[in-house]
């Protein structure tokens, strides 16, 4: 939003500014539901894993901006709590990123061995072949 307002003078807009809607929080939510759509509508297993990745980034964006206030410093080095942003969501998100990487790696590894067994990337085809096996 900072970039946009430096190009256009938007200072006359008062409370209820429609551009306030474009905050990290709301974009995070929109991305979350885009990811959910991907999980619902795509039958490709790789795309399922990608959708999960989108959801994870959405949540990270959401967390980092929930308690955001302008003109705060990053919580690094010698800053008092009065001037720095809330450090807890950032600390939590580092953990979430690590977990997310590990989880994506595990799902892709599992997908590889599933692919070796069934030779397809499609959920429906996998379930049909599985029925034929039994």
């Amino acid at each position, binding site marked *: 939003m900072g970039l946009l307002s430096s190009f256009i003078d938007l200072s006359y807009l008062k409370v209820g500014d429609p551009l306030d809607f474009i905050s990290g929080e709301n974009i995070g939510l929109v991305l979350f539901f885009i990811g959910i759509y991907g999980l619902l509508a795509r039958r490709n297993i790789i795309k399922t894993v990608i959708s999960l990745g989108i*959801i994870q980034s959405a949540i990270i964006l959401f967390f980092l901006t*929930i308690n955001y206030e302008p003109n705060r410093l990053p919580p690094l080095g010698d800053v008092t709590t009065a001037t720095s942003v809330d450090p807890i969501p950032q600390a939590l998100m580092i953990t979430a990123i690590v977990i997310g990487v590990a989880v994506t790696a*595990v*799902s892709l590894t*599992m997908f590889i061995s599933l692919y070796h067994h069934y030779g397809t990337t499609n*959920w429906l085809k996998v*379930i049909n072949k*599985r029925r034929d096996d039994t």
Partner: protein
Amino acid sequence: MFLFWLILLPIVFALLGYLIQRKNLQLLMVIAQLIIFGIAVYSYIMVYRYGAVRATLGYDNSFIAISLVADQIGSLFVMLSCFLFLMMLIYNYHKHYMNQLFLFLFMVLQGLINGIFLSNDFFDLYALLEVATVTVAVLIMFKKDSQSIYDGMVYLLTNLVAMTFFLLGIGYLYKIFGHLDFETIKSLMPEIKNPRTLILPYTLLITSIGLKSAIMPLFSWLPRAHGTPSAPSIVSAILSGLYVKGGLYLLIRFQDTFSYHLDTSKVFLVMGFLTAVIGFIFALSQTDIKLILAYHTVSQIGLIIFGLSMGSEYSYYGAIYHIINHAIFKSTLFLTAGIIIEEYQTRDIRQIRGVFKRMPYIAVIMIIAIMGITGAPLFNGSVSKYLIQKGTTYSNTLEFALIVINLGTIISFVKYATMLFGDHEERYKVRLNQKIALGLLASITFIGGLFGQHFVNFIFHQHIQITPVSWLNKTIVYTISLTIGILFYKYLYKKIRFFHTMREIELTFNEIIYSIIFFFSGFLGYMMIAF
């Protein structure tokens, strides 16, 4: 500080076992389990005597630091978990697939489950559940059978989706409260002026925990994961007996935390009943013995949620006692089913006959466990079901619902018990370690029923009396239900085509995600109208 050891010790021992490649690794692990069980008993006694124990790591400021809290119920469940893991390792002492990797994953899972029962912080819970999901998925597909790879994959991805809902819910909670501590959030609850702000985080959290504990539309991943053909039977036993209870335990805690503003026990009463009914209908329609047991877990979870949401103190205690009982007899049933499958080389209940003649010891253990799960008088299931029933006295509908659930359980176990009968010449020899483990579990099923009221009084500091008249009453109801069950199975069951169509139902991954979204939007809609 001993609380941290309950989580750390299994993982440390698992690592040690993985690194020291010794021949008698199993012995080391059993000794390790004995030590951990000792600590769990010690912590339970401490909590019982002196009240909830709190252990804080890092700063002493409890708002920021990571803290573990062992309360009455949490420490009881930790003790149960350590006991079951000890039994599982004794039971599987001789198996060749118990290599370092399997033991490593299995013991890490124990640490994580203990952590779930002790954790006091939403984000810690997220991390524990996520790692536990990965561990369980690898354990399910440990034998690398093609079927179990699919089951493990579906399990992993659906649970990961549920955990993203959990994490988003945590984000909203942090935005509202600025804390992620259970106790702090509970104490800050009265400060919230507008309860509607809590609806979205609550719904997100309940969706993910509902999937973990397999509530009605969200259970379709459970039977596949718990009853997958090639998963080792101790993994099935732990998953069905213990791991699902982690979800239930979190449900109890979340309801407790949010109950100040959002009291949803009525919805959960209905959902518990539906879960129980659908669970036993599915269990009746299956022919695979592991799948019957797995669907049965769904049904019993419904019963437990039903009891928890009844709003009566008796049924609440009954439901918690039933969680413990179910852990014991369901793991016994899974272990015996594992032996039967190994011996008969089939999982189809129509082809297994003459278990009683072929392996009498296993058959006796199985009968005791079935008596427990159907709530026969003098077995532990009857005590917990009696307590749940005692809470229904204010409403006839509830009592009727409970009888319907129990009748369903009995019918499906009449079907399960058909494999006991029939002729067979050979004798199967049970190994000593399996005899010990199964014998201990079965005797707890019996002792827990015989001295059930003393146990309940001891655990919950209550004075509940079960009179001989109510025992007699219960025996009559049980005999009538059993007769109806046998008659239904003999004369009606095979004529109903409905069960055949039920057997074919299997949701694809996208449909499971659809059911999650359906649950989420439905619950959100209900909450928007009701509050």
